[in-house]
């Protein structure tokens, strides 16, 4: 009330004409307008609600549909742009390929993707995988190697008739240094000068043996008897070893 009095005095001082004017509104309003406005408004709200419920029936949308909608649309747009890019490029480079279907032609066992359990496999396996058919191939190679070994061994055992020691036990029991003592120097030299006797390995071919014999033969001729005897004494173990190696053959 005090504030209104202050305002009135301000207007009276500044605009005396306005201070004397009637403040009632000159506009007319329908009769009982304010009494009727509330029921009218309630009725209108009810009508609008009916219209609204008719426009949006009680449909359900999946949870999070609107939250994910923009991402889903963007993904589709990108996908389509990508397709267009690849197709457009192909139409320039090799248009004939556009006629082809990209559906896989290779056969996949039924239910493969549903049944395969890579998780369990990855958790428990540390070594790389090899296919069974590859392992089968290796077993074939191994079998072939064993058969070859038996053939070579048999050939060695049953065709080496010149050798007086038919049994490997006899070879192993042989005292090479003592036996060498009984051999004359002349016999030793004759033996060593013959390239056929310098055979160190069963796997060497005759050509390889000849080559090796030629290499070894020349310096032997220049050696003295003492040097030869010393050489044989020092290396007699290796001969035993050669015999033992033969014993290890399959």
């Amino acid at each position, binding site marked *: 009330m005090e504030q209104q009095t202050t305002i009135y005095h301000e207007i009276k001082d500044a605009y005396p004409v306005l201070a004397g004017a009637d403040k009632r509104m000159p506009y007319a309003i329908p009769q009982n307008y304010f009494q009727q406005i509330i029921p009218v408004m309630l009725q209108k709200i009810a009508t609008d609600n009916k219209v609204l419920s008719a426009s949006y029936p009680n449909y359900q949308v999946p949870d999070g549909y609107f939250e994910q909608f923009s991402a889903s649309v963007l993904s589709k747009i990108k996908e389509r742009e*990508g*397709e267009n*890019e*690849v197709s457009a*490029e*192909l139409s320039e*480079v*090799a*248009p*004939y*390929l556009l*006629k*082809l*279907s*990209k*559906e*896989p*032609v*290779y*056969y*996949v*066992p039924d239910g493969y*993707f549903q049944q*395969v359990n*890579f*998780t369990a*496999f*990855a*958790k428990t*396996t*540390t070594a*790389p*995988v*090899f*296919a069974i*058919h*590859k392992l089968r*191939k290796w077993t074939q190679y191994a079998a072939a190697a064993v058969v070859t070994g038996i053939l070579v061994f048999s050939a060695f055992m049953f065709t080496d008739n010149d050798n007086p020691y038919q049994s490997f036990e006899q070879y192993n029991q042989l005292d090479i240094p003592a036996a060498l003592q009984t051999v004359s120097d002349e016999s030793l030299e004759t033996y060593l000068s013959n390239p056929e006797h310098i055979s160190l390995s069963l796997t060497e071919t005759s050509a390889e043996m000849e080559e090796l014999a030629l290499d070894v033969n020349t310096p032997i001729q220049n050696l003295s008897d003492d040097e030869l005897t010393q050489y044989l004494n020092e290396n007699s173990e290796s001969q035993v070893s050669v015999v033992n190696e033969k014993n290890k053959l399959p």
Partner: protein
Amino acid sequence: MHAEDKELLIQFQQPGTKERAFTAIIKKYQEKLYWHVRRLVVVHDDANDVLQNVFIKVWKGLENFREDSQLYTWLYRIATNECLSFLEQQKRRGTVSLDNDDGEGLGHQVKADSHFDANKLEWRLQVAIQQLPEKQRLVFNLRYFDEMPYQEMSKVLDTSEGALKASYHHAAKKIEEFIKNY
């Protein structure tokens, strides 16, 4: 990186959800990777072996995966390396001829497929792809079938985008020519 992949990687770091996250990653990518591998090695059993090795490596390496690249790019890279390594082993063992000496490459394997039908363009396409040099074959498959952008492919194959485009164009022209004259 896709939000879903990021979430799966977070779950993979936690012991309680590690296995579930790994299974979800496999379910999401296994078919795409399978077809990528199958197109390169041709035979289903080989594709299955290679894919198992891929997921063993993923299981071991996922904890150290750098999140600055896409998960699927990383998976494709592992799958591609596994395929190349497998094909190299095959070549060394002489199980298959990959040298294109006869111009066939793995084409023999494609033709040996019990469902092979030379009258179908799609089978001819598979034979044609096997005539390509290894790098072109990879590029063509990734672009034509997987519709991979060059930018992503560049990360998978560690090659410049320009070189990849050139490879793809050469490969597509060769294949078109092959199919027309088959």
